[in-house]
C-alpha cells in the first residue's frame, strides 16, 4: 500500500512546491517597491548615486526622514510635510466620520423605514458611485463659492462627504438589509422612536460595517489628490498635493532618499488603518453572507 501511494505523494509535493514558489514570487514582486523605498530612504545621497538600487544601506540613518518631515521644500516654502500631514488629518477625520454617520442613517432609513420611492432613491444614489471626480469639479467649485466655504478645510470636508455618501450608503444599506425588520417592529411596539431604535438597536449591530466604511473612506479621502489640488491652496493643501510639490521641486539636486521618506510618510496612515482594522474589513464585507 505504501508503495502504491508513493507516486501520489510525490505529485502532491511537486504541486505544493509550485504553489508556494509562485506565492513567494508574487510576494517579492509586490514587496519590492516597498523594499526599495524603505532602503533608499535610509541611505545617504552619495550611497544612492554610487550603489545598487537593491543593496542594503551601509550606514542607515533617518536624516532623509527628518528632512522630509520638517525642512524639505514644497514649492517656495521649505518646511517639510509636517504641516500638510496635519492638514490632511484635520479634514480627513471629520470627512470620514460625517460620511460614515450619514451613510448609516441613510442605510437605516432605506431598509427599516421604507417609503414610496425609496428604492428609486437608493438607485439614484448608487449612480453617485460611478460619477468620475472630474465631472463634479466645476459645479462643486461654484457650489462651494456660493456657500462661502471655498478654499477652506470645511469646503474640503463637504466635498468628500458628498462624494463619499454614495459609497457609505451602499455599505450600510446592504448590511442592514440582512437585519430582520421584525427587530424594528418589536422596538416600535416597545415604544421606541426613530432615533432611539437607531441608537439602541441598530448601531450596536453595526460595528463590522462601520469599520468597512471607515477604512474605505479613510483610504479614499486620504489618498485623494484631485479634489485636494483643486479645492485648496497654499498652506492648507493636503499631504498628497504637498508630496507632489516636494518631489517636483526642481531647485538643487534630486534627493531620492527624501522623496522616498516623504512618500512613505504620506502612505503611513492608510497602512496603519489597514493593519489595525484590516481583518474587520474582510469580515465586514462578508458579514451579510452568513446568517448571524
Amino acid at each position, binding site marked *: 500500500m505504501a508503495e502504491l501511494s508513493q507516486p501520489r505523494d510525490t505529485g502532491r509535493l511537486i504541486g505544493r512546491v509550485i504553489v508556494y514558489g509562485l506565492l513567494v514570487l508574487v510576494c517579492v514582486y509586490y514587496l519590492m517597491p516597498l523594499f526599495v523605498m524603505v532602503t533608499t530612504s535610509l541611505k545617504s545621497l552619495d550611497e544612492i548615486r554610487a550603489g545598487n538600487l537593491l543593496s542594503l544601506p551601509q550606514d542607515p540613518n533617518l536624516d532623509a526622514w527628518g528632512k522630509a518631515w520638517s525642512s524639505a521644500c514644497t514649492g517656495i516654502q521649505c518646511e517639510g510635510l509636517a504641516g500638510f500631514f496635519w492638514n490632511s488629518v484635520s479634514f480627513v477625520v471629520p470627512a470620514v466620520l460625517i460620511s460614515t454617520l450619514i451613510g448609516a442613517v441613510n442605510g437605516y432609513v432605506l431598509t427599516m423605514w421604507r417609503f414610496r420611492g425609496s428604492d428609486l432613491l437608493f438607485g439614484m444614489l448608487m449612480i453617485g458611485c460611478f460619477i468620475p471626480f472630474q465631472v463634479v469639479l466645476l459645479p462643486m467649485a461654484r457650489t462651494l463659492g456660493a456657500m462661502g466655504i471655498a478654499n477652506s478645510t470645511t469646503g474640503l470636508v463637504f466635498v468628500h462627504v458628498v462624494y463619499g455618501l454614495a459609497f457609505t450608503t451602499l455599505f450600510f444599506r446592504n448590511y442592514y438589509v440582512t437585519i430582520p425588520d*421584525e427587530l424594528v*417592529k*418589536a422596538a416600535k*411596539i*416597545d415604544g*421606541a422612536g426613530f432615533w432611539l431604535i437607531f441608537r439602541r*438597536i441598530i448601531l450596536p449591530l453595526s460595528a463590522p460595517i462601520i469599520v468597512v466604511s471607515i477604512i474605505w473612506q479613510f483610504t479614499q479621502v486620504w489618498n485623494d489628490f484631485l479634489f485636494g489640488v483643486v479645492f485648496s491652496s497654499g498652506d492648507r493643501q493636503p499631504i498628497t498635493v504637498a508630496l507632489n510639490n516636494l518631489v517636483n521641486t526642481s531647485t538643487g539636486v534630486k534627493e531620492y532618499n527624501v522623496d522616498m521618506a516623504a512618500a512613505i510618510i504620506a502612505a503611513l496612515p492608510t497602512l496603519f488603518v489597514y493593519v489595525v482594522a484590516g481583518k474587520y474589513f474582510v469580515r465586514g464585507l462578508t458579514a451579510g453572507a452568513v446568517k448571524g
Partner: protein
Amino acid sequence: MGALSIRDVRKSYQGTEILKGINLEIEKGELLILVGPSGCGKSTLLSMIAGLDTVSSGEIRIGDRVVNNLSPKDRDIAMVFQSYALYPSMTVRENISFGLEIRKVGKAEQQKIVERVAHTLQIGHLLDRKPSQLSGGQRQRVAMGRAIARDPSLFLFDEPLSNLDAKLRVEMRVEIKQLHQRMGTTIVYVTHDQIEAMTLGDKIAVMKAGEVQQFGTPRQIYDNPANLFVAGFMGSPSMNFIPARVESVGGGYGVRLESGANSYVFPAVSANGKLKSWEGKEVVFGIRPEQITHRVESSLGAEHIQTASLPISLTEPTGPDTLVLVPVNGREVTCRVHPAHARAPGENMELMFDLSKAVFFDPASELRIA
C-alpha cells in the same frame, strides 16, 4: 364591549384587495386564533391590529378605544414575533426591560418586574446572557417574557412556534396555554397549523384569500364547518370528501355509495330535509376518518350507524390508530381503525360509519348544504 373588535376591516395594496371586510370580536381573556394557508391575510391582519400596518377602511377597537390612528406604542399591546426579534446587542434582562425603560418605569420597579417575569417563565438563570447564547426554546421564552413584562391589554403572537422543532413546539404550545389560563390575558394568535389552532383557541377564525371563512369555537369549526375549505383545512388526516348522488330512502334522503360490486345508500340522518331539493343530484358527502371505524357490536342498531364491507387498498399504522384506505365512489377514503382490528391490504373489512356528524356540500359553490 369586547376586548378586541374588528369591524369591516379592509386592506388594499397597489390595487389588490388583501383583506376583504373582516369582522371579528372577542371578549377579555379569550384567545383568538387566526388560521389559514400562507397568503390568506392573517399576518397582515395581525400587523394592522399591532399598528405596524395601516387599515384601508373599517375600524379596529382595543377595549373601548378605536386604535386606527394610534401608533403601536399607544395601543397597549405586546407582540411575540416568529423570529423572536430579540435585540441581539442586549442581554435578556435588557431585552425584557427595554420597553419598561422607554415607558419611564423606575429602575427598582423594572428590576421587580424582570424578576417576576423571569420567575414565571423560568428564565432567571438566563438573565445576563445575550440572545445568541440561547437555544430556540429559550429565545421563545424570552420573547414571551418581553411581552408579559409590559402587562398590556392585548397580546399578539405571530406564528411563535413555527421556528421550533416538533417536540419543542408541543411543549411550548402547552406552556402558552398554561400561561394564558393562569394570567387570563387576551391573545390574538396567528398560525398556519390547524392543530395549534384547535388546541389553543377559544375562538378560531379560519381565513382564506382575505376573507374569514368561518369564525367560531374550535368545536363549532370542527363539527360544523361552514364550507368545504374549512372542513378540509381543520383536522388531520383531513375529512373525506366523497362525491355521491342523493336518493330517497325510507321516507327520507340519503347518499349512494359504491365500492366494487357493493352498493349502499346511507341515510343523511343529521339533516334529512335539507337534501330534498338535491334528489338525483350529486353532492359532496363529508365524513371524518374517526367516524369510520371497525365494527363495534354495542353501537349497532342506531339509525345513524351504518356498516359496509369494503376492500382495503392501503394501511398506514400511526401507532395509536391505523389509517385504512378503502375505495368508495372512486375516491380513497381514510378510516381510523384500532390497530388490533385493522386488516391487511387486499382483504375486505367490515367498517362502521357514524353518520351523526356527516356533512354535505354543494359541489359547485362548496358551501355547506346540511
